[in-house]
């Protein structure tokens, strides 16, 4: 049913006179600095970018459609696979949305654990960003350093959830399992040394003249443009807009934590670098507060018809066995309605829009992904600049293609 004709890509050059001067260059989808399978169609005049057109969809797997055929609890593992660098943020956002539909209160310990894990995820994602971004610029060493620390985070995830990347640890109604006894010691051990590691990265990059020249005054994005083009997260804050959902519209108990929201007025790639580096320091503080004040109590909500019972109870109590069987075989129904839940993910504002028609399967699940929206600003940031700057700008908005294409 395509009754509407589509405009082809770059059908005409910008100016009549420029017809013989510009050329169209294809970049990607298999290009190491496009962070996945992003394809850019560039119109260039010499080395100057005249127009830029992102072509996406190479990783489209129809996750939103798949969600409609699954029970509510079966959707959780799908959400990991959207943004594979911050799985816990996706888990959290989806679970918060369904819990909002169910109007289900979550025990305090589960909320604090969610905050702790969500900040660890942010560190994980920012470490990958820093390593690959520096590598795109030509600073290969940093990659090895950041992946050393990321490895420890992945081991912590494996320790608590049994999986390194596709954790699915945050579930509707709480968490999947009680964290192992020495889990907190292990996180503490990591956090104790991590601020020094950030200094180490900073020493390698912040004063480096090549890195500074490649990043400073490149990819300018004003605050007005950022808001108009839907940019969120670190790129928005690097344009001088002081807005962070964790502080301004708190969820999962973030209002109980003290932290600063780093903002930069630079509006360029360097500003985004500074903001993210500072965010890592703030995340470390939040994790420390979560460890210090971790409350005692249950990690799952008291809702036997929604939350799976403990293994032990399931094997000894008839009632728990029945609940387990019912949840697994026919799911649980969710009252009809529509909710939108937003959280601050590593890349910006993530949102889940869940519509229920009162059955055991979601009627509609839509993900608002920060990378998808931020990609629209790419042309504004690159137009009139050198071709080599495009690579720096892509790195600075930190795209994850799994999240863009879903």
């Amino acid at each position, binding site marked *: *049913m*395509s009754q*509407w004709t*589509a*405009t082809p890509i770059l059908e005409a050059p910008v100016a009549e006179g420029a017809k013989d001067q510009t050329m169209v260059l294809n970049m990607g989808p298999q290009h190491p600095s496009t962070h996945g399978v992003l394809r850019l169609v560039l119109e260039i005049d010499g080395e100057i970018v005249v127009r830029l057109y992102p072509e*996406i*969809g190479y990783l*489209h797997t*129809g996750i*939103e*459609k*798949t969600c*409609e*055929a699954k029970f509510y609890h079966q959707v959780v593992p799908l959400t990991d696979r959207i943004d594979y660098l911050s799985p816990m943020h996706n888990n959290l956002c989806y679970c918060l949305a369904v819990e*909002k*539909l169910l*109007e289900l209160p979550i025990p305090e310990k589960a909320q604090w654990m969610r905050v702790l894990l969500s900040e660890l995820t942010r560190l994980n994602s920012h470490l990958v960003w820093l390593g690959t971004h520096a590598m795109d610029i030509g600073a290969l060493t940093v990659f090895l350093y950041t992946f050393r620390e990321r490895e420890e985070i992945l081991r912590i995830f494996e320790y608590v959830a049994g999986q390194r990347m596709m954790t699915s640890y945050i579930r509707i109604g709480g968490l999947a399992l009680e964290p192992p006894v020495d889990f907190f010691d292990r996180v503490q051990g990591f956090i104790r040394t991590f601020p020094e590691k950030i200094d180490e990265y900073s020493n390698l990059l912040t004063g480096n003249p090549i890195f500074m020249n490649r990043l400073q005054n490149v990819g300018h994005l004003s605050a007005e443009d950022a*808001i*108009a*083009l*839907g940019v969120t997260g670190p790129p928005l804050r690097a344009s001088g*807009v002081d*807005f962070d959902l964790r502080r*301004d*519209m708190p969820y999962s108990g973030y209002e109980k934590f003290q932290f600063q929201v780093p903002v930069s007025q630079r509006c360029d790639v360097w500003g985004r670098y500074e903001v993210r580096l500072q965010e890592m320091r703030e995340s470390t503080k939040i994790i420390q507060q979560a460890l210090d004040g971790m409350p005692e109590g249950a990690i799952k909500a008291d809702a036997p018809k929604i939350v799976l019972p403990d293994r032990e109870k399931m094997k000894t109590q008839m009632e728990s066995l029945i609940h387990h069987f019912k949840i697994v075989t026919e799911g649980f129904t969710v009252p009809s*309605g*529509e*909710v*939108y839940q*937003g959280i601050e993910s590593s890349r910006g*504002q993530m*949102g889940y*829009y869940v*519509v229920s028609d009162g059955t055991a399967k979601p*009627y*509609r699940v*839509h993900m*608002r992904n920060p990378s*998808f*929206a931020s*990609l*629209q600003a790419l042309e504004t940031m690159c137009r009139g600049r050198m071709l080599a700057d495009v690579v720096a700008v892509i790195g600075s908005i930190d795209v994850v293609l799994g999240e863009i*294409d*879903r």
Partner: protein
Amino acid sequence: MSATLHGKDAVLAEMGQHPAISAVMEKMPDALTDARWDREELTLTIAPEKLVPVAGVIRQAGYNFLEDVTAVDWFPAQEPRFQVSYHLLSHARKERIRLRVMLAASKPEVETITDVWPSANYYEREVFDLFGVHFAGHPNLRRILMPDEWTGHPLRKDYPVEGYR
């Protein structure tokens, strides 16, 4: 305030002072066809032909950021079949509202809001691609996630989950 308010009159009676509602009621009162307050979220249903001016009015009222545009297909249970939802965020008020328009199956078309929020460009392309809702006046209404030569719109409810084989 009540936990849920259904219908325009109930919302107007209790939330008439809300900046978005008062702005719409002052400038174009007949554009608002329905309203709902549910789970601490405000939904305003707007007549499709008045969407663009209402979006402008609400933007003036402080809702400066368009967070998301998406659609829901209510086939076969409901007519009008398509619901297009717009999620707006106010940085100053730290609050979100939802606008929605209902579109008939025979002519799923609404005017684009890219003139009010340029970020609607990709969101509307996605809705066009996956639901087949047409956005009149859109600068570049092409498929975005599916291949250009694809037939059908996968997120419609009459499109099978496993696709056509």
